[in-house]
């Protein structure tokens, strides 16, 4: 029997988790390797873009899982992404303006780590979106 709606999403979770783990492993390895590679070298540049390809593989797996989901699950995913995207813009914009207002005297996380904001907010917004339809 064909898997239904949320079952299809749940069935896709191991693949999504595996793809996410692969991407994170490549990212962590790249960050570690960059500490030892000569700045500006070809090796450093190739190492820095490797996680991008790993992330696209992860995004492809997620997209495939969402395509298999039923209409409510797709709506929940859209709600979560819209909320996470807009919240991330607000946070990053606010940080940038605060940086200007304090003329660099505020302690911020390094810009290289700001990208974590979007997936972290997406995870939170997904919980919020799910509760709306419970």
């Amino acid at each position, binding site marked *: *029997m*064909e898997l*239904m*709606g*949320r*079952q299809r*999403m749940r069935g896709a979770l191991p693949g999504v988790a595996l793809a996410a783990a692969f991407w994170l492993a490549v990212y962590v390895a790249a960050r570690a390797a960059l500490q030892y590679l000569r700045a500006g070298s070809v090796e450093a540049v190739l190492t820095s873009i490797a996680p991008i390809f790993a992330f696209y593989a992860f995004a492809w797996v997620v997209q495939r899982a969402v395509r298999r989901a*039923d*209409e*409510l*699950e797709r*709506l929940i995913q859209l709600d979560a992404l819209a909320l996470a995207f807009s919240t991330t813009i607000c946070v990053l914009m606010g940080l940038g303006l605060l940086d200007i207002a304090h003329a660099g005297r505020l302690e911020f996380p390094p810009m290289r780590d700001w990208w974590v904001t979007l997936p972290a907010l997406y995870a939170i917004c997904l919980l919020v979106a799910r509760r*709306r*339809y*419970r």
Partner: protein
Amino acid sequence: MRNDLRQRRAERGWSQADLADKLGVSRQTINAIETEKYSPSLELAFKIARLFKLRIEDVFQA
């Protein structure tokens, strides 16, 4: 959108999971429709009406 899906389902002795299986959606979707937190697409509304051998307006009321 108001509906009496829960009553129709109960008359046939189906659980939410049973109805979800028959319609090809998740139990979460059925629950959200019954609690009127989610209005189904036209396609799903037609599927529901056809399953119960009723007109759409007999199941859903605007």
